């Protein structure tokens, strides 16, 4: 991995310095700056933890189901948690603009709002096919004040080179990352990273820490934790505070059958991004060039899983589980009809795993907590195929 050297060094000019420090820190906890806490309060933190009684009834589960609902944040997903922190650190360093890429759109939306709330500008390179298929996402980012470019774009040398070869190129996350990082380096601004890296998981741990506190206030303890895994940031942020306490807790990581990284991926050094701009890390991976067939849950298409999560899976501390599209759509319908919440397709995996668990352990009386990482109001098209 001799290419890693330069990419690790490169992080110094790419990431906010404090993010990089947190990436390499040994600290289990980082103090949340007051300014970030204040923004968290404004964008809907703490997010609700509620008991899903109607789902319990529907499933005939004799224990309790709790839902941690990250869809209640202003941008509708957990992504805002780390975006706010990263944009804050960038702003504090005197950086006046941040840039990132986005595929499904959640991360770009989070970056756009986080930048605005920290008084800095933002630029988002959005994979062209998503840009065209998800106009609402583009609109929200613009509403939050971001400049949004369809990638490949003419804004960067790399984008131009791609367009020259293939003017109608539909774009890819790899190309968008390349453009965003190139744009950051060229303009001396900072790049925000949406998942996989340690610092991101640390920021997301606000989910799990809040959940612990909320359970404590309810006089409850968690026995089973269920979340979905794209890069691993919502899952890690949700479960690590529990796992870190060394308590007996079952953690189930729900991924897409179509992206079987935790079952059929190799545990090895691999590139974090298709373009190889970011460092390689040791993780379960299907290979950075892996192209999943379907896109119904865009956030779960990532080829790998955060290194720390990979280790926990390898060590049997986290149990991976794969769910396919049909089961996810059914789970989303069940959740909508019982609890009224239209969850994101990604979160639908966690809900599907929850339903599986409850059906298999009907007589158990455990406390299950499921992290519903986002709402699905802007992804309703996935129901097209079941005629809704």
């Amino acid at each position, binding site marked *: 991995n001799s290419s890693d050297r330069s990419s*690790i060094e490169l992080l*110094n000019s790419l990431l906010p310095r*404090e993010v990089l420090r947190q990436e*390499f820190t*040994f600290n289990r906890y980082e103090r949340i700056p007051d300014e970030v806490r204040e923004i968290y309060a404004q964008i809907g933190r703490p997010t609700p933890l509620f008991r899903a009684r109607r789902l319990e009834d529907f499933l005939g589960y004799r224990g309790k189901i709790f839902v941690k609902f990250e869809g209640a944040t202003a941008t509708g997903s957990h992504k805002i948690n780390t975006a706010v922190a990263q944009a804050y650190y960038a702003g504090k360093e005197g950086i006046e603009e941040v840039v990132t890429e986005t595929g499904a759109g959640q991360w770009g939306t989070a970056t756009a709002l986080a930048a605005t709330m920290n008084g800095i500008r933002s630029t988002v390179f959005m994979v062209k096919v998503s840009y065209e298929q998800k106009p609402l996402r583009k609109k929200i980012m613009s509403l939050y004040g971001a400049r949004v470019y369809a990638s490949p774009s003419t804004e960067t040398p790399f984008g131009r080179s791609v367009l020259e070869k293939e003017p109608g190129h539909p774009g890819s996350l790899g190309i968008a990352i390349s453009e965003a990082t190139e744009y950051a380096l060229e303009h001396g601004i900072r790049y925000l990273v949406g998942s996989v890296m340690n610092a991101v998981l640390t920021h997301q741990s606000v989910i799990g820490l809040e959940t612990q506190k909320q359970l404590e206030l309810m006089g409850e303890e968690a026995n089973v934790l269920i979340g979905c895994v794209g890069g691993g940031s919502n899952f890690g942020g949700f479960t690590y505070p529990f796992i870190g306490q060394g308590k007996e807790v079952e953690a189930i990581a729900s991924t897409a059958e179509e992206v079987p990284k935790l079952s059929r991926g190799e545990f090895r050094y691999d590139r974090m991004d298709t373009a190889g701009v970011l460092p390689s890390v040791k993780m379960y991976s299907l290979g950075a060039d892996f192209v999943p067939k379907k896109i119904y849950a865009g956030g779960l298409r990532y080829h790998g899983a955060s290194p720390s999560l990979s280790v926990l899976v390898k060590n049997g501390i986290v149990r991976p589980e794969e769910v396919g599209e049909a089961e996810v759509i059914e789970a989303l319908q069940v959740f909508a009809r019982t609890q009224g919440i239209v969850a994101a397709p990604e979160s639908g995996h966690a809900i599907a795993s929850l339903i599986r668990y409850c059906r298999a352990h009907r007589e158990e009386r455990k406390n299950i907590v499921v992290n519903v990482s986002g709402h699905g109001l802007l992804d309703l098209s996935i129901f097209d195929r079941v005629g809704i």
Partner: protein
Amino acid sequence: MRKLILYLTFNYPSPDTFTRFLDEVSRLPVDYVELGLPTQNPVYDGPAIRQTHSGTRRPSAEEMSRAVKKLHGAGIRTYFLQYFRDIEGQRDTFLTTVNASGADGILLPDLLIDFFQGAEGHIHAVHSHGLDFVPFFNPAMPDRTISRFSSITRSWAYCGLIPSTGINVPYDQGAVVERMLSLLRGREVNFGFGLRSLEDVRKLVSGRDVGVAIGTALIPYVREGDLEGFRKFVTELRGVLCDS
């Protein structure tokens, strides 16, 4: 007394120059020496140390013995550093060779990271060959990994301050050190990786009973054959360790 540990890549930049530096080391106030056995891909080393491996000849068993004997003669404990991935197939042969060299023990920087699932057995084998196993803990490792491997080893512990040598990334030295020390209470702990200057060292050891391992910072002297500069730097290092 705080330990001063030097790292040198065996036979770098050439067997001759290396030997001259080893002679110099044996005259300096050094506690331990780690001798890196050249390899193709020293994954947890940064660019400077990587370069010392590139094209450098692996020592023979006899060269290894000679080096150990020389350092032992000066009262310096000697360890060989080897990536486990390079010896995975010939572990026992390798351990036999090291043991025969008279060395005090070995460091396998990737064992607890990339091979942690079978690591207990390998550590047991090191011990069976009459060698110390110096556990290498890096800041990305989970608590329970550190505690587990600390409990089954007996020598001093080598703690990296950052995940790779010689890479310029920001890190929170104080926090890393305090956390490591709290996990390794009652044990001799020496820190390495990311100590770029005397100032870094002073900050690290100030008010703490810990030693330091220096590698990357020595390379320019070794590469240039600058024995005098080398001597001065090591002497200053010792000074910082005594003063702070």
